[in-house]
């Protein structure tokens, strides 16, 4: 069920933003509290729970042995899904993933895939025959804005927490479990444009009056590996450059947080 924000409240929020203020008193490029916990879900090969303010997201990875795609016979298969379950918001409904969930999954997936976070060639067991299939599932429990960053951070942490369950499969080439080979640490920063103001990590009310959204995913070398402009509004070219500049510091802080939580050294 769609929730309505009254016109006068929207006007107030616009005025506030124009004055350079935010509903919860944050600076324009400040995150809410980020809490990352890795490894909470035992049956998963890797997992992370990310709380971004009151937004609450679980990510779990599962691995299986299967066939590679014909055009990439030497690579493991990576697949990302997101569920916006009705528990998370009065506006979400039961049923197969809609366009919002699909966009979320694909944007996060692109960061992982194009950022070459996982060395998929290492996930080949037998060329053209058998490879590891890596499932990444994003499960949103509480939606209070900025799912893109919560999910993106959660996926990165979950991947770094992932252990390849080689011992469970007779045909996995290796006999012992080993950490998922990670080549890069990619995290997103998502900016929201409201009128002429750009801000980081929009919470729910801000998201409701947002004109446009821009997600920038960077690796540890500050290289851009994925971007997505969302919503019906637009950015001018200069603003996109501004966002990328800002994203460098923001992402490097986030990256440190992820690495600190997962505590993995072999990257």
């Amino acid at each position: 069920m769609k929730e309505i924000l009254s016109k006068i409240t929207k006007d107030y929020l616009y005025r506030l933003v124009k004055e350079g203020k935010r509903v919860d008193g944050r600076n324009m490029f400040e995150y809410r509290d980020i809490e990352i916990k890795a490894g909470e879900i035992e049956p998963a090969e890797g997992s992370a729970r990310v709380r971004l303010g009151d937004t609450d997201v679980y990510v779990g990875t599962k691995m299986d042995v299967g066939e590679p795609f014909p055009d990439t016979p030497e690579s493991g298969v990576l697949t990302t899904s997101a569920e916006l379950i009705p528990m998370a918001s009065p506006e979400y409904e039961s049923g197969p993933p809609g366009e919002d969930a699909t966009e979320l999954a694909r944007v996060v997936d692109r960061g992982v895939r194009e950022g070459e976070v996982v060395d998929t060639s290492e996930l080949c067991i037998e060329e053209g025959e058998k490879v590891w299939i890596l499932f990444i599932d994003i499960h949103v429990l509480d939606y209070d804005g900025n799912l893109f960053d919560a999910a993106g951070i959660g996926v990165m942490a979950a991947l770094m927490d992932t252990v390849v369950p080689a011992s469970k499969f007779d045909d996995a080439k290796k006999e012992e479990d080993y950490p998922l080979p990670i080549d890069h640490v990619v995290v997103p920063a998502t900016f929201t444009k409201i009128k002429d103001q750009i801000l980081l990590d929009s919470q729910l009310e801000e998201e409701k009056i947002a004109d446009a959204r821009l997600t920038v995913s960077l690796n540890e070398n500050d290289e851009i590996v994925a971007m997505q402009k969302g919503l019906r509004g637009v950015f001018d070219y200069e603003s996109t450059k501004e966002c990328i500049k800002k994203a460098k510091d923001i992402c490097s802080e986030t990256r440190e947080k992820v690495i600190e939580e997962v505590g993995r050294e072999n990257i």
Partner: protein
Amino acid sequence: MSKDETKRELLLPGDEIEAEGLKPGKGVFKKDGKIYAAKLGIKNIRKGYVNVAAQSGRYDPSEGDKVIGTVSDIDASYWTVDVNAPFPAVLHVNDVPWRVDYGDTGSYIQVGDALLIKITDVDEQKRMQITIDEEGLRKLDVGQIIEIPPFQVPRVIGRGGSMISMLKKYTGCKIFVGQNGRIWIDGDLEGQYLAVKAIKMIEENAQAIGLTEAIESFLKKETGKDFDD
């Protein structure tokens, strides 16, 4: 149950209530001559009735409540208004202070408009009749609306209106607290911002001891004003 007399008595659904000589009021149910709590809340006794005042949950509309609604749909002769209750309310053209011709509803009130409403009737099906054709009721053209859990409304109003008048005094804002947990705030931007912050503080510390004093010292600090002198 509670040893300390000044400690409020929290009841859970199904708790038996000692209620000798009392009649079952709101938030309770009677079974085999005994009275039980029907919801999570605080016990109170009024005029021979024992009640349980909710400490959580949605707004339960009752006749005479003044609430703040948001228009969600328009028809030729009525508006649909969301008042934070399980069901939307219907505002008929007869219940507004203007003479509205059939089909002309959109010229007066539009989707997204905020209204200060009185609930004039709630039937057994929880269908509400509402009006804005009474003194003090109106369309709200300026300011903003925030939401708190409805059961916290008495906290924001305060004993004898003490909390709310303090908020108004320090922030210079006009504030109206709807029974449905929606609060209308109007004033300059600084004042509104401060009022919202103070109300959030009340919401988060609603059960704290000495809340009024804490809010007052916060407002003093933020505004530099002191009305004690």
